[in-house]
């Protein structure tokens, strides 16, 4: 499998909080990486460096083997990186279709570059229908939707682009079982295409082992454990977390 994205020695501090303390990872095309770890471990910070939202204090990111230094989110997007952020990055006061096309709006031809609302509506509705997400209208304000629906919109937005590297930060957190199934099916379909690299942060160990090829465990800004999904178990992962927790209490 060919490597799509790689990070080496990422360090990120916020004031005197060390969010990442030398993290290295890589994800291959057609592979799905699960990222596990407690709240505050640094998982979201890691993802946000890969999307160009944060700049690392040290370390280097490579896309297709070439070093990249993202100056902005747009910069990372130009390299085919898309993300479903933990906070979903939705604007409640805007419609579903405006949110789905935020910062990649479709425009009418011509010098005025006016928004093509009609085409955005049509494509947003088609993208949601294809995934199986039912909303009364794509004109609805996102603020009027349930937590699970909002999450589904954010996922639909990320996958409806031609992402080659897809980053998902707890995409199933607010979802009911049926919605979660839809999203898992969707992600597995994408994975089976073989040309997309996927990294997903999640909380449910058993579920993550089921759908991912490989998992890493992030604790206090470092990767403490890494294994193919088939070679470990939820019990083993939990035991590592508990051991760490006890060590931290003792120390």
């Amino acid at each position: 499998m060919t490597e799509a994205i790689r990070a080496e020695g990422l360090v990120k501090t916020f004031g005197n909080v060390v969010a990442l303390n030398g993290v290295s990872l890589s994800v291959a095309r057609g592979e799905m990486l699960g990222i596990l770890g407690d709240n505050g471990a640094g998982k979201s910070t890691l993802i946000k460096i890969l999307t160009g939202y944060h700049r690392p204090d040290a370390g280097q990111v490579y896309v297709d083997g070439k070093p990249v230094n993202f100056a902005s989110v747009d910069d990372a997007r130009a390299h085919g990186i898309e993300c479903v952020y933990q906070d979903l990055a939705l604007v409640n006061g805007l419609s579903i279709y405006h949110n789905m096309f935020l910062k990649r709006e479709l425009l009418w031809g011509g010098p005025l570059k006016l928004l093509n609302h009609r085409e955005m509506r049509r494509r947003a509705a088609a993208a949601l229908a294809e995934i199986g997400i039912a909303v009364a209208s794509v004109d609805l304000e996102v603020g009027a939707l349930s937590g699970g629906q909002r999450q589904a919109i954010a996922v639909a937005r990320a996958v409806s682009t031609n992402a080659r590297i897809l980053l998902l930060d707890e995409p199933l957190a607010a979802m009911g079982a049926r919605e979660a199934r839809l999203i898992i099916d969707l992600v597995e379909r994408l994975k089976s295409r073989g040309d997309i690299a996927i990294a997903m942060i999640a909380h449910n160990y058993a579920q993550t082992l089921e759908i991912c090829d490989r998992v890493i465990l992030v604790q206090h800004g470092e990767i403490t454990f890494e294994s193919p999904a088939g070679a470990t178990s939820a019990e083993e992962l939990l035991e590592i977390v508990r051991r760490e927790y006890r060590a931290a209490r003792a120390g």
Partner: protein
Amino acid sequence: MVAEGAARSSFARRAHSFLLRPEASVIVVSVALVAYFELANRNFITNANLQTLSQFVAAPVIIACGEIMLLICREIDLSVGQVFALAPFLMENVNDIGVPEPLAIVAALLVCALIGLVIGLITIKLSIPSFITTLGMLFLITGLTLTISRGYPANTSGGPLLTGIMGTWAYSEILWALAIVAIMHVVLRHTRWGLHTIAIGGNIVAAAEAGIAINRIKIGNFVLTSTLGGLTGLLEAFRVGSIDPLAGGSNIMFLGVASGVIGGTAIAGGTGTIVGGLVGGIMLGVMQDGFTLQGINAFTFDIIIGAAILIAMAANIHLARLRGGGAR
């Protein structure tokens, strides 16, 4: 019978949701006010008075177009009324050194745009609330205008065609206002600039995660507001035929902001309409003009206008809650 009932209830529902729109309620109040003033005076709806009314409406509406964009992205410009006063003096000074009047107008507007750029850069780069930046600029620009003018009024120059277009023709100022409203409505509803302005005010973190150039858009809206403030000052100067270092000021700025808020723009950002600003400006203009016609004492006049602004703004904030948007 059943169909008729359904039709009526759908009509009622549509009427109900129309009345819940901020623009709609303000239109209803404005029409009621016009009817009242016409009944009370018998000379409200006359060509002469409509011309006067249009003059009350035009300036606050143009100012509102800028302030609405700023309010939507959670900023404000308190100094726009001072740019209003400065612009005509800039124009006259440039004109005095031999530059033709039309070019002098462009030069004055460029300086106003530059002031907006400075406000934006200070606000963004130093992370200062624009309330503070523009409060400082308010005093600074007043001082600048008084220095340039030495505190004295002056007369405008320029040929009849130019002065006509810029303000002396009967309805030229309101036509400027309507054209700017039309353009800004399209900018807000039908361009990426407008959409991103709304996104920034609605959820700044989401806007950043989506990759929106937040600083560029905020600074651009400061530039826009200052430029529109300067243009309004020029239009008023041409219409009146003289320029006054104490024209405009905080009064015109607050009328602009009030027009926007009465028309449904949220001070907390994220929502607002340009058309609402026009409607709000018309309502304020009708009141100012109407009470002037009634010959009401100037002090009472301010009390009435002040109370009306309070009531209209409070009503709209509550209507926004009724629409189900919560306190926005």
